[in-house]
């Protein structure tokens, strides 16, 4: 009897820890951006900015999750712009529940969103979702508003 209880409980533990890999974003900085640019030298890649307070961002995140599951190596990097350390848990939970734990993810550390926004693109005023397309030459092009999965796919995979 007791052994079967143990088996059930073990299963519960394993299941609950297995459910979804948990997301764990890293802090974004100018240095991180440089590293990302180096990592993607001579490649197209996409930097996607999102926030917990942006409903359309979640549509975009869903599209990214789908693309990522179909193309695990698709070069998409996520950056959360909420700029509030008290929202850390909520942010990671959102990424986890969207199935995005495996997508490289960063966040703007508390107090730094304006400086980082300015460093990435002084003409970006915080509107979301915001995408930065980097081409093979390392040139950046910003776009404000929701991207469809097809648009991302075409730009990253079918050029």
């Amino acid at each position, binding site marked *: 009897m007791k052994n079967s209880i143990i088996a059930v409980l073990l299963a519960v533990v394993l299941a609950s820890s297995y459910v979804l890999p948990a997301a764990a974003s890293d802090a974004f900085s100018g240095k991180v951006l440089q590293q990302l640019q180096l990592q993607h030298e001579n490649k197209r890649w996409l930097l996607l900015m999102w926030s917990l307070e*942006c409903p359309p961002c979640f549509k975009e995140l869903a599209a990214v999750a789908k693309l990522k599951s179909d193309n695990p190596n698709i070069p998409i990097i996520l950056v959360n712009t909420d700029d509030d350390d008290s929202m850390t848990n909520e942010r990671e939970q959102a990424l986890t529940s969207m199935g995005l734990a495996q997508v490289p993810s960063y966040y703007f550390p508390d107090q730094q969103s304006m400086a980082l926004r300015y460093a990435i693109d002084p003409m970006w005023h915080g509107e979301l979702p915001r995408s930065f397309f980097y081409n093979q030459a390392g040139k950046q092009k910003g776009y404000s508003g929701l991207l469809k999965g097809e648009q991302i796919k075409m730009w990253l995979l079918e050029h």
Partner: protein
Amino acid sequence: MNFNSTNALLLFILSMISLTSYAMNMPGHGGKTVYCSSVEITCASTVTTTFAPDGSLWRLWSVQDSLYFDKSDDKGERFGLAKRVNIAPEKISSRGENRPKIAIDKFNGIYLSWSHPLEKRFSATIRFTYSADGENFLPVKTVNNDGLNTGHSFNEMLIDELGLVSLIWLDRRQAIYAKSRGESYNGSAIYLAQGKVEGNGITFNNKKLVDTTCVCCRLDLTKNANNKLALAWRHIFNDNIRDHALLTLNGKSSIHHRFSRDMWKIDGCPHQGPSLSIDKTNRYHLTWFNQGAQGKGIFYGYSDDLGTNMSAKKRLGDNSKQAAHPDIYAFNNRVDIVWLEFDGQTHQLWHKVSHNNGETFQKAKMLSNSSTKTDRPFIIAQGDERLVSWQIVSNEHRLIEL
């Protein structure tokens, strides 16, 4: 396995389960892990400030699922002890443009409204309470009457001389109704609720004012020279053109007027709504932010016919320095506008003033700056008294005389 080791294993597994469920039970949407150690105003992300009819100045903020307020009788030189609003703790939206509101009547009765996030992402209810004495508050009332687990947020509130409470907010119920009909619905609707505190309660009706508005930008609500409610918001025109509109509730027409034509096409969140102030001649003074094909930056314009025709727009601020979040106040031919800029290192509060009712403005001046994160600025005014309320998050709440 003997009895003791079995029990030990059971204990271990149970503790693993409780640890796992603890880790998974982290705060949901709107939940906050407490980082700022006190409930002081400096810990708040947003501060809402208002003058009472008797000239006292009141501040409202939210920390740790509670609302707090304090009061100054000398226009912000000194404030009395902060008081916690005596209601059960609940999550309160208080970031960016979605924040609690306070209004005070001529008896110093306190009216509060806020958006209360629910578990489901982007769902919330509009909440209201009132206190005659600052100690005892009415049971909290949910203002939206649809009972739907969907978005109700960005509340604005106005109280008139007779105690009529008017609340407007962004409401997603029409999107739910449309979905049930198999149709699509872009954006939110604006709803109006009105009611009066009577005895120990208040009853609100709900009325839809406008369809297809931006879902994440603040509204502005004020009264015009004829004592009619007037509101301004970011609307969705045609294919996701996010320009601005205004509506006067004068009983004659429910037609809203587009007052910006900057053609900002974005299927996304600008996170910036307009600001409206109406003077005694019934000139509607407006300021707004856009990044459209026909206009990028902060703009000012006015209308003398409820928005049917607009003056030529004037650009304010430096768009290359992130000029954003303008707020406006017009009184006796004077028009004041404040906004924020950022030069890469410093957050700056800027001010421009017109002494000929918006025809021309003097050169912009920087009023204050901060090296750390700030809230949006608001002009708090009563007649000729004008203050800017500017929260430097985790640092200090500044009140700057204009």
